[in-house]
Every structure is written in C-alpha cells, then in structure tokens.
C-alpha cells in the first residue's frame, strides 16, 4: 500500500487507543470510595464497645443483605433484562439448606453459606433451563408460579417443619457482641456480590448479557450462546441470594416459609433495582439504602405491615412512571452523577 500501513498496524493502533481510553477511565474512577465505605462498615461495630447500638448494626446488616440481593437480582433483571418476581425462592432455599445443616448437624451457617449458595445456584440452573425458554411477560408469570410452587412445597414438607418452620440453635455469645459474626459474614457476602456484579458487567459474559437485554435475536445471530448465557446468569444471581438467605436464616434463629416466601421480599429486590437504577453496579446499593431508610421511617410512623406494602407499591408506581432509569441511571444520563457513585 502507498501509505505503508498493514492491517496489523491499524489493529495495533486501535488497540492502543482503546487501552488508552480504558486507562483514563480507570484513573478517573473513584475506586477509593467503595473501599472507604467498606472500611467504615468494618469499623462500625466498634460502637458496641460502649454498647446500645445493636439496632444500628441490625439495620446495617439488613441493608447489606438487601444490597447483596438486589445486586444479585440485577445480574439477571438489570443486565439480562429478565424480570424475576420470584427470586426469593433462592433466598428460601439458601436459608433452609444451611438451616437444616445447622439443625441436624450443628454446623453454623456462616461456614455452610457458600454451599447453600451453590444449592440455590443448582436449583436456579435447573429452573432456568425450563423457564428461560420464555421471554418477556411469560417469564415474569412463570417466576410468580415458581414462587407459588415453592410456597406450597415448603408449607407441606414436614422434614423442614412445614408451615410452622423450625427454630435454630443460637450461638453462645453475649448479647453485646451477638450480631457481629452475622454482621461481618453479611458484609463479606455483600462485598463479594457487588464485586462479582462489577466484574460481570465488565466481562465478555456481561457484554453478552447486555446484548441479550437489547435484542435477543440479534445477540443470538451475533454468535452468543444466549441460552447458556441466560441460564448461567440466572444461576449466578441465585447463588448470592442463596448465600444471603443462609446467613439471614441463622441470624433470625428460625426458618418459616412466610418469612422467606412472601412476595414483599421479591418486590423489594425489584424495587431497589428500579429505584437505584437497573443495570448499573451502584444502583441496587443506592436503591437498597434509600428503600430501607424509607421503610424504616414508614414503619415508625405507620406501623402495620399492610401500610408498608401499600407504600412499597406506591413508591414503585411513582418510580416506574417518573424515574424509570432510577437514581443512578437518571443522574448518569444528565451527566450529573457524582464520581463516587460511578461504578460502571
């Protein structure tokens, strides 16, 4: 060629350019922020030296649990675009799996949580093989049906205590420190989930998932094994929810289907993602914090759980109508997103 440039030169130049862009992005990224957040969470239990902060710890644990679950739901619902309204089934499976190991063999859930996650992921994989054949509204309906099937099974399965559930033995720790093991375990689960969510979004796998959410047929014809990608996303998102369930089960010391298998748990996961911003890494966490703070206030003012349900629904309608992209998504679109929240 006249210019003396080969194809390989062009490719190399393009690669350099892309890497340059990526490293600029990395330099501008406020990586310090999640780390500082994590450090603060690690240090928070120090408050307990003076005592009287069990409620704060409980609230943080609860928020971290939902941040983990919402982030996990986001892998399927946000990146892949498959809305599951029965994701608490995996929360339940995780809780019961570890809970039964604890009740029958005395092994603490904190150790068996990864196994519980794995059990949830296996079930998720199997269920996904069936239900992910459907798309759009039909998938959503099948996820509700899954929840109903699980509810009937757990309500009538005597081995796991049926609808009365089982009471789990408590750890022998003075009340002042009793929450700490669960607090730190949940923190690990939460951090792991968010990290995984970040890594997935920035991987070829994540790119495939997002292609599926844009246009599944085109994604398929572009060479993505959409079936495998979807099912894997479903299993991964079941895994972390299952782990959270395992720790939560031992933390509250009893398992009962009407704790795990109520629609409000699933609704919360969905709503947190919508509020914070579906498909963003930071969105589910922001959503979880906002919604839990809001719920806590509404429970303080109104009490009854029915009102809480009403308010959850109202917030969801308003969020869907006026902020369909969520807090993080809307801010990003307006280029007003503070750098500390730009985790994508």
């Amino acid at each position, binding site marked *: 060629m006249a210019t003396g440039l080969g194809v390989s030169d062009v490719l190399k130049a393009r690669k350099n350019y892309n890497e340059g862009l990526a490293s600029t992005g990395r330099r501008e990224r406020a990586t310090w922020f999640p780390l500082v957040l994590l450090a603060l969470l690690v240090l928070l239990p120090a408050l307990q030296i003076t005592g009287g902060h069990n409620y704060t710890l409980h609230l943080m644990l609860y928020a971290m649990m939902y941040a983990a679950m919402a982030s996990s739901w986001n892998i399927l619902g946000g990146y892949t675009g498959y809305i599951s309204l029965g994701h608490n089934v995996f929360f339940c499976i995780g809780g019961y799996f570890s809970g039964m190991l604890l009740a029958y063999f005395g092994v603490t859930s904190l150790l068996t949580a990864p196994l519980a996650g794995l059990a949830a992921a296996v079930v998720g994989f199997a269920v996904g093989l069936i239900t992910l054949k459907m798309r759009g509204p039909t998938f959503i309906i099948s996820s509700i*049906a899954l929840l*109903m099937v699980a509810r*009937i099974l757990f309500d009538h399965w005597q081995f796991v205590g049926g609808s009365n559930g089982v009471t789990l033995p408590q750890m022998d720790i003075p009340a002042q420190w009793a929450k700490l093991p669960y607090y730190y375990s949940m923190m690990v689960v939460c951090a792991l989930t968010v990290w995984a969510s970040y890594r997935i979004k920035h991987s070829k796998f994540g790119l495939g998932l997002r292609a599926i959410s844009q246009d599944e047929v085109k994604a398929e014809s572009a060479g993505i094994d959409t079936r495998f990608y979807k099912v894997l996303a479903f299993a991964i998102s079941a895994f972390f929810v299952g782990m959270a369930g395992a720790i939560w089960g031992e933390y509250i010391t009893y398992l009962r289907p009407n704790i795990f298998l109520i629609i409000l748990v699933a609704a919360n996961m969905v709503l947190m993602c919508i509020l914070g911003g579906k498909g963003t890494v930071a969105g589910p966490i922001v959503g979880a914090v906002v919604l839990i703070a809001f719920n806590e206030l509404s429970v303080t003012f109104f009490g009854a759980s029915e009102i809480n349900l009403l308010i959850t629904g109202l917030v969801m309608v308003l969020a869907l109508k006026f902020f369909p992209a969520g807090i993080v998504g809307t801010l990003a679109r307006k280029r007003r997103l503070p750098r500390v929240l730009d985790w994508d």
Partner: protein
Amino acid sequence: MLSSMLQVLILGLALGGVYALMASGLTLIFGVMRIVNLAHPIMIIAGAFVAYWLFRLYGVDPILAMPIAASVLFVIGVALYKLVFEKEAASAKYSEMTVLLTFAVALCADGLLGALFSNTQRVTTPAYATDAFIFGTVFIPKGQAYAGAISLLVIGALLAFLNFTRFGTAIRATTQNRAAAQLMGVNVGRVSLITFGIGIALAGAAGALVSFIFSFFPAKHWEWIAILMSLVVLGGMGKLVGAILGAFLLSVIAAFVGTYFGSTWSTMTFFLALFVILLVKPEGLLGDRQEEA
C-alpha cells in the same frame, strides 16, 4: 365409582364457570392492550369486598350485589387506566413496563385492602351458600351451581356484546391488529380505556360470586395470579374463548386431582400446568404463534 367420578366432574364444571369469568377480563385486557394484568386477582378480591360489605351492612344478596360490584370496579378500572397506563403506550419497553406497573398496583391494592379490612378470612353467607341440589347419588352445592350459571350468563352477554355491537367489533378489531384498526378509524385510545374498565368490571363481577364460594382475604390474590395465568395461557393469551375452554379444562382436572390426591395438590395443578403449557405449547390451545413483544 362412576357416580363419584360424575360428582367430581360436576363440581369441576361448576367452578370452571367462575374461573372462566375470572379469566375473561384478564384475557380481554391482554388482547386489546397487551397488558399482562397482575393486578387482576386483587380486583376480584376488591369486588368480593364490595359484595361482602353490602351483604353484612344491608343484607344485599351477593348475586344482586354483582352489578354494583362491577360498576364500582369499572370506575376504578377507568381511573387506573387514566392515571397509570394511558401514557405508557409510547414506552419503549412497553410489555415489561406495564407488567411491573400492574405488579406495583397489585401491591398497593393488597396493602390498602389489608390495612382497611385486615387479612382475616371472610365469606358471605347467603342461605344458598350452604345448601345443595341433590339428584340421587350426586349433589351440586347451590352456591357453586348459581355462581357457575351466572358466570356463563355474564360471559354469554360479553360474547354477544363483542360480536353483535359496533363497539364490540371495534374491540375485536383492536385485538386483531391495533395499527390497522386505527387506520380504519377506530378510536384505539377510547377502546383501550373502555376495555380496561370492562375487564376490571368483570373482575368485580367475578368477585361478588367468589365471595360466597371461597373464603377470601386480600393477600390471597398472589395465589390466584398464577391460577388465572395458567387458564389464560392454556387458552392462548388474549383469546376469550380459549380462556373459557382453559378454565373448564383445568378446573375439572384440578377437581379430580383434589379428590384423589388432596386439596393441596389441586392448587398445584394450575401452577404445574402453567409450566407445562409454557414449555410444550407456549401459544396455547387457540393462540396463534406470535412474535414476542
């Protein structure tokens, strides 16, 4: 043996009529607007509450309360469509968006009814609810017989309305092809509004009948979502006749399963059927294969 099977068949068919009425509004709304209305079952329960309070406070028979429940729910339906769904027509992710919106509406209504009336089990008790027709060895509970018969009457009226009136034709045209209907001069927006109202009114009418054959409480509707969806999906989404067929078929199957395996499994029939249908024949019995929205 034979007479006991006949007995189960009759009970299944009587309930099938009511299920058909419950599903008819759902499938009508899906047909015209492509909205999967997850809030449909809670509207049925709202209708049941209207009948319940009319019965408790004024002694109005639930069957006579049916038109009142339907009218109240019609107004609610129209208001809901105006407030929540009308502007969504332009939304890019329409089907996903509307499902989530109906889910949120269902949460609201569930919470509201629960807060107002609490989640205790209720049932209206007109005299016929505990009586039965007896023919030799088989019997039909009067409540279920009346409810089934009236459901069929209402469905018949609905079919007549859809097939023999101008507005009904407009609804059917919109169901078949929204864009073409609009080009032919059908006011699609108005058709959608009225159809949504009619669909929710049908839920209210079904609720009045449900009030004396099932005990109900607000949180029960989650179970019904999956039940109704299985009927509608079996018949083919948006196909009214299909939904009626599906309702009778599954109701009879569930009645047999309930008799021979216990009542827990009779509910399970619907859920498992839903999975099986979606896997084997997702377009349903009468549905035509349509592209996913």
